[in-house]
Every structure is written in structure tokens, then in C-alpha cells.
């Protein structure tokens, strides 16, 4: 009973709390900021409380309405931990960043609601609930991308909303046809049921559009017009991780049976996405666009590991979500500091910032190392495991596609670092960011390093999680 209450609170505290924030702001703005952060932290701490329960091999089911339930297994708790921890850092960063702008009530309401919807989605074990939370995240991110209300920003927010909506409606069609076949929306009852190719295509369209994979990816770089903490949320912690998580939830944790050919087709799509996005990142000159394309590219690695579907691939993909989340969050927050202080995002007009912004520069470099997959950073293990899953399944050529992607990752990230932080200064001398912002980026960089050195802990957890997933290919 107690565990079920915890599970409900994890979702309800941020969702209900979000709507209370504008009211609290009438009392005090500082209190509102504190509450926003603490709602996310409460969720995070409660999720930690679930770790020992899940680690002992149990799962938790909590009923809400009718036959809809929340369900916590290793996969869900892992994902929730990743999202909550990174979101907490990003909200903390926001306290410094967003204090310069108007409409802060709307900002905090949407961010916390966004986070709550993510928690709901992660723990949903019912397709309709899953869809419901999925759309809440779409609406909140639409509002947040257009937060600065300029005409072009609003258009881009519309684009993000329309593309992901297009995908999610098709996915809903897929869910309905599953219901027609089996008479149930409940994932527990749907275990190991067979899916026709059409349904797989419908659901995949939804997933790929949300996780910004080729050819449904272009909304994500455009969404860079959002405030930096929001882009960090979209890329690192919440939005794009929804697609990969639902892929894992449906095709691996629920064990939907599909044609064998999808185990090759999805890695090929992911590989094409990784390469095209890496190429775009090489040629782009807008700091946030480059990092956004980098996300599209890295998501390809995650999809590859999941779609190959062997134990090391799935575990590697989950680790990838964690390590990429921390490192990419750090990169965006660093980009936010650079953008706010220099008033430009064009990397050809920046340079030499390491002299005046040493902490930002070093954090950026460390996070880049993690994204590149350089040991002792956490990204090394996830990249190794995902790459190995391809060779382990015998599809060595897939590993070579991603080798090209990984090489380009190194090249474009170093290019950005050198252009922005090294060489001659091209702007007026600028100050380092505020202390809350610096603490956030340094924390994420340190976590990226710690993720590699203390790999034992996430890895142990994932080894146990893998045993709970029926869809793993032996």
C-alpha cells in the first residue's frame, strides 16, 4: 500500500503542484521558485525510495481510474530517475536564467507540468493513459518553445506541435487497432501479443516523431529558439527521451512480437538519422542548432541499441539515455550561459571565451567528452555497449555506420568547442554566468564523469532490469 501511495505521489505532486504555482506567486515569488524546485525534487526523492523495492525484484502496481494503472518496474524507475534528476538540475538553473525575463508564472507552471506528465507517461501501463500524458507533454512543450512570443518562435513552436501531433495521432490509430485485435489497452494483458506491420509502422511514426528521428526530426533544431533551460529539458531529460522510452516499453518490456525485419529496418533508419544529423551539425553555425542536431544523431545510437534488442543493446541504450541526458543537458546549459552573456548564438562570431568563462568552458568540454564516448566519462560505456550490440547480433555493417557517426561526433563537438572557447576573442569581454547557473553546469559535468567512474551502480541496476524484460533477444 505504501509503495503504491509513493507511486501516485510521484506523478500527482508535480501535476497538481504545477497549477498551484501561479497562486503561490501571489504570496511570494521566491516561494514559488522554491516550490517549483521542491515539487521536482519530491518526485525525485520518492523515485529513489522505489529503487530498493524494484531492485529486490518486485514490481509495483497502483490503480487509479477504472482499469487504468500505474506500474513501476526496473525500466520505469530507471527512466524516472534519469528524468527527475536532470530536470531538477535544469529547474535549479532556471532560477538564475529565467529571472531576466517576463511571464515567469507561465514558465514554471509549464515546466513542472511537463515534468509531471513525463512521470505519468513513464509509469503508465495503459495505452490510453500513455497517449494522454504524451499529448500533455506536446502542449506544454509547444507553449515553452514559443515562450518568447516572437512571430518566428511561435511558428516554430507550431511546427514542433504539428509534427509530433501528426505522429501521435497515427500512433493512437495503432493503439486502437491493437484494441480491436485484443480487446484491451492494458499493457499487462497485452504481453507478447503479435503486431501486424501496419500497426508497427503507425506506432513507429509516433515514436520517431517524438524522438526527432529522420525524417521527422527537423522540428527539434528549430525548437532551439526556446529559452536554454527549456531546450535542455526537451533534449536531455524529457521530450525526446519519451519516444525511445515508449519504444522500450512497448517492444521490449511488453514484448510485442513483430516481424524479424524490424530488427534491421529500425537500426538502418536510426543510422541514417545519426549520419544526416551529424552532417548537419558539422555545417551549422548556430550554437544551439549544432547541439540539437547532435541530439538527433545520438538518439540514433539509442534506437539502434533498443531495436537490435539483445541484452547488451538494451542495457547500453538505457545507459545511453542516462549519460547522454546528463552530458547534453550540460551542453545546453553552457550554451545558455554563452548566449545570455554574449547575446549571440553564432559560433563564427564567438571565440576565446575560456579566458573569461573558465568554468563554463571546462564544463562544456567535459560534457562533450562524455557525448563523444571518451573514458573515463560515462558516455564511453554506453557507446561501447550499443556498438557491441550490433556486432554481437552479427550485423557488423550496422556497427560501421555508427562508427562513422561516432567519428563525426568527435569532429563537430571539438569544432564547436574550439570556435566558441578557444582562439581569439571576437566579442566584448563578458562575465561568467551567475552562481546558480555555474553550479548546475559544473554539477552535470561532474555527474558525467562520475557516471563513468561509478558505472558499477547503474550497471548493476540494469542487469537486474534486463531480467524483467521479456522482449530481449537471446
Amino acid at each position, binding site marked *: 500500500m505504501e509503495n503504491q501511495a509513493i507511486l501516485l505521489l510521484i506523478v500527482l505532486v508535480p501535476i497538481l503542484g504545477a497549477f498551484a504555482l501561479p497562486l503561490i506567486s501571489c504570496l511570494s515569488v521566491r516561494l514559488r521558485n522554491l516550490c517549483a524546485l521542491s515539487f521536482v525534487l519530491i518526485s525525485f526523492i520518492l523515485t529513489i525510495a522505489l529503487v530498493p523495492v524494484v531492485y529486490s525484484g518486485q514490481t509495483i502496481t497502483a490503480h487509479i481510474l477504472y482499469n487504468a494503472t500505474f506500474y513501476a518496474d526496473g525500466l520505469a524507475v530507471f527512466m524516472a530517475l534519469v528524468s527527475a534528476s536532470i530536470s531538477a538540475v535544469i529547474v535549479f538553473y532556471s532560477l538564475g536564467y529565467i529571472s531576466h525575463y517576463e511571464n515567469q508564472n507561465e514558465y514554471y507552471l509549464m515546466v513542472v507540468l511537463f515534468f509531471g506528465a513525463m512521470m505519468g507517461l513513464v509509469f503508465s501501463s495503459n495505452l490510453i493513459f500513455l497517449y494522454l500524458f504524451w499529448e500533455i507533454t506536446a502542449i506544454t512543450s509547444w507553449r515553452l518553445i514559443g515562450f518568447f512570443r516572437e512571430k518566428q518562435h511561435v511558428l516554430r513552436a507550431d511546427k514542433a506541435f504539428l509534427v509530433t501531433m501528426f505522429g501521435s495521432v497515427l500512433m493512437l490509430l495503432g493503439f486502437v487497432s491493437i484494441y480491436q485485435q485484443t480487446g484491451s489497452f492494458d499493457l499487462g494483458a497485452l504481453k507478447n501479443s503479435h503486431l501486424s506491420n501496419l500497426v508497427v509502422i503507425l506506432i513507429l511514426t509516433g515514436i520517431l516523431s517524438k524522438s526527432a528521428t529522420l525524417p521527422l526530426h527537423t522540428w527539434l533544431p528549430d525548437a532551439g529558439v526556446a529559452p536554454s533551460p527549456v531546450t535542455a529539458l526537451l533534449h536531455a531529460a524529457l521530450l525526446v527521451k519519451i519516444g525511445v522510452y515508449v519504444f522500450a516499453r512497448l517492444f521490449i518490456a511488453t514484448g510485442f512480437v513483430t516481424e524479424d525485419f524490424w530488427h534491421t529496418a529500425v537500426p538502418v533508419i536510426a543510422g541514417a538519422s545519426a549520419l544526416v544529423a551529424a552532417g548537419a551539425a558539422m555545417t551549422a553555425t548556430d550554437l544551439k542548432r549544432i547541439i540539437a542536431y547532435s541530439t538527433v544523431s545520438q538518439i540514433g545510437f539509442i534506437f539502434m541499441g533498443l531495436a537490435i534488442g539483445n541484452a547488451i543493446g538494451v542495457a547500453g541504450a538505457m545507459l545511453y539515455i542516462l549519460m547522454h541526458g546528463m552530458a547534453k543537458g550540460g551542453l545546453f546549459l553552457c550554451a545558455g550561459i554563452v548566449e545570455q552573456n554574449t547575446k549571440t548564438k553564432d559560433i563564427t562570431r564567438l571565440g576565446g571565451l575560456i579566458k573569461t568563462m573558465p568554468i563554463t568552458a571546462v564544463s562544456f568540454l567535459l560534457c562533450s567528452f562524455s557525448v563523444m564516448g571518451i*573514458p573515463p566519462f560515462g558516455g564511453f560505456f554506453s557507446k561501447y555497449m550499443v556498438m557491441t550490440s550490433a556486432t554481437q547480433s552479427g550485423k557488423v555493417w550496422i556497427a560501421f555506420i555508427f562508427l562513422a557517426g561516432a567519428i563525426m561526433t568527435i569532429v563537430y563537438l571539438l569544432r564547436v568547442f574550439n570556435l566558441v572557447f578557444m582562439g581569439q576573442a571576437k566579442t566584448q569581454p563578458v562575465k561568467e554566468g551567475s552562481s546558480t547557473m555555474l553550479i548546475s553546469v559544473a554539477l552535470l559535468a561532474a555527474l558525467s564523469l562520475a557516471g563513468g567512474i561509478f558505472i558499477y551502480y547503474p550497471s548493476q541496476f540494469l542487469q537486474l532490469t534486463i531480467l524483467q524484460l521479456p522482449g530481449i533477444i537471446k
Partner: protein
Amino acid sequence: MNANILLMLVIIPLVAAILILAIRRLSEIIALLATGSMLIIAIALFRQNLTYSLSLPWAGFGIEFIFRLYHFSAFILLAITAFAFLIVLYSCSFMHGKNYVNQFYSYLLISAAMANGAVLADNFVLLLFFWEGLLVTLFGLIAIGGKEAFRTATKMFIIVGVSDLCLMIGIGLVWYLTGTLTISKITVPLNTLGCTAFILLMIGAISKGGSMPFHSWIPDAAVDAPLPFMAFLPASLEKLLGIYLLARITLDMFKLTTGSWLSILLMTIGAITILLAVMMALIQKDYKKLLSYHAISQVGYMILGIGTCLPIGIIGGLFHMINNALYKSCLFLTAGSVEKQTGTTDLNKLGGLWSKMPVTAVCFLITAASISGVPPFNGFFSKEMIYDAAMERHPIFYIAALLGSFLTAASFLKLGHAAFFGKRNQENENTKEASLPMLIPMVIIAAICVLFGLYHRSAVGTFLTPILTEQFVEHDASVLLVTLTAIVLILAVIHHIIGTEIHGGGVKAADHIHHAPVLGGIYDKAEKRLFDPYEIGLKIVNVISKILSFMDKAVDWIYNSMTVNSAYAASDTIKNLNTGNYSLYIIWSLAGGVIVLIMMLKGFGS
């Protein structure tokens, strides 16, 4: 001794590195203490000559934390820790008063820790963890060299990073083929996938060693990075690591035989590296840059030796590995003391330092003789073994190696003449000998070079022979080959004397080769980096990126223009149909009615 002592070899330098960064003072003393204690542990372990293993819980999925110490790794550890200690001692004086001294020591110690870990690792992923981890400290060590040094650091990072990624996939393939990642248990069959795996692992190994085509960052780093970095990493530590791994994969894992085409591939890479790099070395006008091309050229001998797959070649290659580490690091150290005392390494501005810096000059002479293969120094013996093996495989490899020797000798005659003899530059009249902490490491290393030459049999017997599983009986070098070597050395001297006569001055002794027809043009292009594999690779990546980014723009255009426009077009069309014309609507309704009627009739019909 407890097996946990192995962990100390990684932990001591790491803790020392963190301390140095944290307290920002006494960095020399901390670094000396740390490397000294590592050296003591390594000596103790080597003298015991036991096999240790240590296993700790780690990431799972085949990724285990296993350390294993046996004869070969104990020997490499001894070499790494000894070099680390000597280089730190040298740096105490050399780096004094320079920028970023704390970071220098800290990165150097972490590099030593990573190298120790890589040598001890008995799990392939653990090896990769330490191996690839060196990238970070290398990046730091080069980047602190100067304002523009980050460009070289980036170049190094990309070149080595790419080859480490190849190593990563190779390791994945080995796991797929053998089902284990424990290095001492791996035996890979040489089928198509096996050969692919070998090539990928080989790329990782020879790239760390600095072989062509993964070499081009080393000459740049010679200019940009702090000098002790060059003496420690590209000259000694990276050679030790790269050749160690190459020997492990060819001998233990893949059991390459003389019949395999991979053996010929290795020998070819070795021969090409020897020749091309030494050709570049010959025309250099800078002390450090000239040495850096030799650092590349010499690794070719080792790859050639191991690639022959003959016991004498393998032993020769490994002996050459340790010999090269000795004389090459010492040569870099002499370059450092010349740089410290005169303020330049440009050969045109040096000369006649013999009487001013006698100890440095003697150390230079010994090690230069060693690298040129003059008997009785150590380089002579290892080169003879490699010649022997190369001759047995095919004369063409022998000729390449011999030609390489000729050019090596010629370039060192030029270097020695230009720096230590000839006319002294006016500015260097008051030059003094380097300080004691700089001289001690040089003298020690030069002395070892002499000892290894005089007692080459016991050196090979103590350090190297136990590595081979098969019986190895050393025999005397063939008289014919030794005679040929002597002739080549004499020719090099004659060439130098004539060259000096013609062009006037030691530094210009090889100018007729530099400006020879055809060769001259090629040299000019090479100096402009037109043949740099890194520049070519980057160009290819840029072109591919342009194509890929065009595809991305095309997809984006579909969303931004096509979808939007077609939506407007569709709504416009529908709008035009609804003009408010009454009769048109009646026609619409009638047409609809007819269609419904037809459908209903069809329904009844079936």
C-alpha cells in the same frame, strides 16, 4: 605480496594528480614522490617475476575489472614507471617558471596511471577504458603548450580518437567471435571476420605507436607541446603501449603465421613508415621536429620486426621498442636542454655547443649513434635482428630497412653537426651547461643505452625471451648483413662530408636530396601538408557533411514549404468550389445523390 598492490600503480598517481591540482603547491615534490614509489613497486614486482591477478566487480555484460601481471606486463610497467620518474625529475628544472606547471604534472601523472592500467588490464574493455582515457590527458598536455596549441591538441584528439573507435569495434567483434573479453583467454580464428577484427585492433595499436598514416599530429606537437611531453608520451610511453598491444594481438590472440597476408600487410606498413618518415626527417631544420619524424620512422622498424612473425623478428621488434624508448626520450631531453639554455631549437641558429654543453653533447652522441645503429650501442643489435628477419621474409623489406638506416644516419650527422659542432652563433657565446636535474636523467638513459649494447644478450634474455612461448635461441648476426650495415654507415658519413663541402655547413648537408628534381616538388607539397592524412580526411568529412546536410535541408523544405503550400493549395481549391452559386450546389447534391444510389444498388446486388 598482495595482488592489491597492482591497484596502487593506478591509484598513487591519480591521488597525486588530484592533490597537485587541489593544493597548487609543491607539485614537483608530490610528482617525484608518486613516480618514485611507482618505480619501486614496479621494480619489486619485476624482480619477483610472479603472475598476479586481481578481479573486482564492475559493469557486467562481459566488462570486468581484471588486472593480470605477468612477465611481459611487468617489464612494460618497469619501463613506464622508470621513464615517468626520470621525466618528472627532468621537468623539475625544465618546466620551472613556465605556465600551467600544476596542470602539466597532474596530466602527466594521470597519463602514467592510465598507461599502467592499460598494461595491467586483462579485460579488453578495461584496456580500452585506460587506453582511450589517455586522450583526455594528452589533449590537456598539448593544449597547455601555447595559445594556438589547441589546434594540434584537436588534431591529435581526432586522429587517435578515430583509431580508438576502430579498436572499440574490433573488441566488439572479438567478443562476438570468441565469447570472451578476457585477454589471456582469447584465441581468434583468422576467417574473414577474424581478419576484420585484427585490422581494427591493429589500427588501434599502431596508431598509438604513431605509425603512418596516424602520425601527422606528432611533428605538430613537437613544436607546440611542452618538451617533456614529447620525451614522455610520443617518444616512450605511447611506443611501449602500442607495440605492447600489437605484440599481444599478433602473438597471443590471433597467432599470426608467416603465411598470412596480414603479416605482409604489417611489414608493408612498417617499411613505408620507416622510409617516408625518415625522408621527412632528413629535410627538417628544427631540432625537435627532426626528432619527431624519427619517432615516427623508428616505430616502422618495430612493426616490421613483429610483422615478420619470426621469433628473431619479434624479439628484435620488442628489443627495438625498448631501445627506441631509451634513446628517443634521451634525444628529446637533449633538445630540451638546448632549448632551455639557448632559447631556440632552430638548427640555423645553433652550432658549436660542444664545448659549452659537453655532457649534453656526449649524451647526444651516444644516443644518436644508437639510433643510427652504430655498434656497439643498443640500436645496432635490435636493428640487426630485424634485418635478419626481414631478409628471411623478402629482400625488399630488408632493403627498405637498410635504406632507412642510411637516411637515419645521414639526418643525425646533419643534426649533430649543426647543433653541437661547426661555427658557434654569436648569441650563444655565453651558453652554459644545463642544470643537474636535467643532466641526471639524460646521463642515466644514455648509460643504459651503452649497457644494453654491451650486454645485449643478457638484456634480451632477462627482459624479452620469456615473452615468447616458443623456444628462441639467439644466434650471431650474419656476417654479410653486418658488413652491409657497416658499408651503409660509412656511406652516410661520406655523403655527409660531401654534402657539407658542396653546400657549406652541416645544416645544409642534405639539401641536394631536398631540392632534387621530382623529390623537391614532392617535398614542397608535403611541407604544405598536402599529403597529411588528417587534412585529407577532414576534407572528405566536410564534403560528406555538406551532402548530408543538404539532405537534411531537403527534408526540412518538405515541412516548411511543401506541406504548408499544399495545405494552402488544397484549401484554396475547396474554397473556390464554394462560390455561393446556387445552381452549382444543386449539381453537387444531385451528383452525390447519384453516387449514393449506385453504391446502394451495388450493395443489393451482392
